[in-house]
């Protein structure tokens, strides 16, 4: 596998006057309580992970869990107190100001919770802004921005001001702006949290559609577990600055690493999250006639399977049988075993 696009090694972010010194003294053993007594607040505590090309990592946590701080460390909107961050192999924390600006102008895009649009610029001016900052000629930047306007479906509103748009529309502008420079890495900081549920769902679908087309490397911050499950390739769950678990949605639902994570998974309708692959058995005996793909979500095929008496064959992309699944297993997954960790 090629080099990860984003790589974090033991990243710490601690707020406070003598944070640096305290971190050094603690030898990497950061106890938030002791720090707090000394007037320091721990934002991110020993975060290590990698994000590979085209992958979407969703960081999930409640407010104050340090997820936004983590994102700001990786975009270097704030400097991490300790640890190393690599963006495509470049050591982010050692970049000088000019290189950092270059990196942001060409490689990074970011979407904000409160949209953060410039109030004095129209839709198209907002979207063209990063290009103009880069020094692109006005006509070129505007024509590129118009492409983006079309991409996010705001045609006809390019001369509106942000204040004349609804929240969903404003966030579309924010998304278009972050994509205008065609970045490889896309940061989204709770982009849909400020929107109404219906609009939110619409934007999520839109977002998935875009991502399918663009295949960016994404870090997506949210406090909504359902949103994380829906969008993520992998999910990192944070609490008090610590990453409690980092895994695929299925694994998190099936094997919560800590009590805290388990609480989130309890109410999750598993049939909507898990794939056949996640619950199948490897035995290939006593199979019936029905075959299902291993990539199906349980919910979609549950009815078919439940009407069978024998076990159902599970096949892969090449139509090869790789395992089986019993109707009873489906019933178990859907209705039982929520409390006792599989």
């Amino acid at each position, binding site marked *: 596998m090629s080099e990860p696009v984003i790589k974090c090694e033991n990243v710490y972010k601690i707020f406070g006057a003598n944070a640096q010194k305290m971190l050094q003294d603690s030898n990497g053993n950061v106890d938030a309580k002791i720090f707090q007594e000394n007037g320091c607040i721990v934002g991110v505590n020993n975060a290590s992970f990698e994000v590979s090309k085209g992958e979407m990592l969703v960081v999930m946590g409640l407010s104050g869990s340090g997820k936004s701080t983590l994102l700001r460390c990786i975009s270097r909107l704030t400097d991490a107190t300790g640890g190393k961050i690599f963006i495509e192999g470049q050591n982010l924390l050692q970049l000088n100001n000019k290189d950092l600006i270059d990196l942001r102008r060409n490689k990074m895009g970011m979407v904000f919770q409160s949209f953060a649009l*410039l109030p004095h610029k129209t839709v198209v001016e907002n979207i063209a802004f990063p290009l103009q*900052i880069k020094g692109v000629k006005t*006509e070129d930047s505007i024509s590129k921005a118009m492409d983006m306007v079309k991409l996010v479906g705001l045609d006809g509103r390019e001369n509106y001001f942000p204040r004349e748009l609804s929240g969903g529309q404003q966030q579309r502008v924010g998304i278009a702006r972050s994509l205008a420079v065609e970045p490889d890495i896309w940061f989204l900081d709770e982009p849909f949290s400020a929107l109404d549920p219906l609009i939110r769902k619409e934007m999520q679908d839109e977002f998935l559609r875009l991502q399918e087309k663009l295949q960016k490397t994404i870090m997506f911050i949210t406090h909504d577990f359902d949103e994380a499950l829906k969008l993520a390739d992998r999910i990192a769950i944070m609490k008090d600055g610590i990453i409690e678990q980092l895994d695929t949605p299925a694994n998190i639902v099936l094997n919560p690493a800590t009590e805290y994570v388990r609480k989130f998974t309890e109410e999750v309708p598993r049939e909507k999250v898990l794939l056949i692959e996640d619950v199948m058995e490897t035995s290939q005996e006593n199979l019936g006639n029905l075959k299902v793909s291993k990539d199906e979500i349980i919910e979609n095929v549950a009815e078919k399977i439940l009407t069978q008496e024998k076990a159902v064959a599970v096949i892969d992309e090449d139509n090869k049988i790789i395992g089986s699944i019993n109707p009873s297993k489906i019933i178990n997954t859907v209705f039982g075993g929520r409390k006792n960790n599989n």
Partner: protein
Amino acid sequence: MELFKKYPKTFQWLFLLIVFFALCFAIEVPETYKFIRGQAEFVKDPNQSSYVFLGKEVRYYAFDVFWRLPPLLGWLPIWINDSLFFLMNEWMPIEVWNEDTQEFKSRPIVLQISRNLTAFMTFLIELIREILLGGLETIVAFTSWDWIDKNPWAELPGLPWTIVAAGAALLSYKLSGKGLALFAGLTMVYISVFGQWKPSMQTLSFILVAAPLSFIFGLGLGIAAFKSKRVEKALYPILLVMQTMPQYAVLVPALVLFGVGDHAAVIITMVVAIPPMILLTLLGLRAVPPEVIEAGRMSGCNNFQLMFKVLIPTARRDILIGVNQVIMVCFSMAVISAFIGAKGLGFNLLLALNQLNIGLALEAGLCISLIAILLDKMSLAWANKQTDYFGNLTFYQRNKNLLFFGVIFVIGIILAYIGTFLFKDTFNYLFEIPHNKGISTADFWNKGVDWIFETFFVYIKAFNTWLIQDVLQPMRALYLRMPAIATIVLVVGAGYLIGGLRSALVVCALTLFIALSPWWDRALVTAYMATFGVIVSCIIGFTVGTLCFQNKHSANFMLGVCDIFQTFPSFVYLIPVMMLFGITDTSVLIAVIVYATIPATRYTIEGLRSVPAGLHDAATMSGVNKFQRLTKIEFPLAFPHMMLGINQTIVFALFMVIIGAFIGTEDLGQYILKALSDKKGAGIGLTLGICVAFIALIFDNLIRAYVQKRKKHLGID
């Protein structure tokens, strides 16, 4: 006891008042005390006491310290004065090359800097002035008088008024549209036809130098303060004092430093106009949401781009208010600085007021107000202007305004040329209508004033007498009757009860400064006039504001009226009241009331507007009627904001009281005015200014402390 526990604050206030009145009654008025014999006058009188500090002798009438504190700070004005002179005339001499005598000459560094600055300002003003009116100075600045003598053709001819008027209309059209263009055109035509062209252009050239410079420096310093905490901390106290210092007071030191003339006026205008610009820049930049800054950073802005493409445009609203303030102050100063020899409308206005020619004053005042409104609207339109990217414009369309101006220019020149034949023996009316050759309505107004006086003399006189005898005199007597110690106890006690120990100490220091200066009595008179003005203004302002708030359109209308009134230079307010009431305290007080009602009204409407809509609905659903909603919901919640309005009202009132000295009141302003013509007036003027500023700051401190507490209590930001 039960009651005491329930309302501890009320009893604390009650106790404070009891102490205050006890002190008032316990301390008798000394027999030798006479208000009119000013303590600040340094005449030799055997009854005077004296002391020497820092080599300055201070003479004063000694009283019981509880009655009036001795002027322990009496040496300060003299010291400031001597120091200024020392700076100007002796400190750090440097060698300067003198072009005329071809030799080096020794000159103090401050004087040299002041001369260079002066020369630069003079050049700028003359440049603009001569583009508008014509003249030699600019060309002389690049060459010499000798060269001019040999080349008599080399003179800036000045623009015919037709070109300036059409140009202003065209620019307004480009910036905003037909409405503003019409207004600009009519204003210019009015100015010209009524023979005010020359002074108006003189004033305009003064403004066109002072306003942009103030804007640039204010913005720059505001940015610096935003970026560095240290700069902010250093600037803040200066800003506070400068904002509350009456404009008169800064004139006097300016006289010493920069001499007399337009250049000194520009510099002093900048000194006055920059502080509000800094404060509003800072306020605006602070209010930019952090995510917008982050969005800018993530778009790859460097620091410069972040400041000028993200922060400042986002903070535009507050910065624009700053620009509005700058323009307001510039026009205000355009009048006041006529005292130190600035030419233009202000000078004519003062002259007319001095001669009691109300009609002439009115004309000049109207012109200056019209120009002020025009510039204000133009700057606003300029800031709101949008670029059109999609119009596929031809060369002609893109440059049509420029081309159009070219055409106007040529036509204007041709007209002026024709004019030389048409008006061979008189003035060329198509070039410039000279002062006093235009239409004048002065006689009409003067007759009107006379008519009002003759017709309503009895009533005005009766009102005047009643106000002065039954309201003002007793009030003044009451204020002067307060022993110094009682006043200090009252103010400091209020500070403690409202804002705690810190507030009490600040207020105490400010009060002591005034009490120890030689002008405590005058300060009391100033305070009494301001108090009267503020009370009446607040009553009017709150009532008008509340009534207008009941309807959205009337509220907007009222805010618009406030905007326009605020743009008028403060001096203009004196004209109509002098028309009606002549030269009395009543005139000043009415001007004070009119002027100070503006912020009171504005803040009332804005405060009531800031009450969340959800609360209105909640209140309506609880079944309150309109009146109950007003008294139970809207007033309590809007009150903190309205208090800030009172704060502004006090500052406005004090300014006007001081300006009112021009008509002859006997407060601090009178002394500032006197200091203007005094060779040693700089120190006195400055100290007096600080005294007035401190009066405002005492109230400012108390009100702010109260508002903060109240806001916290109500949970509003």
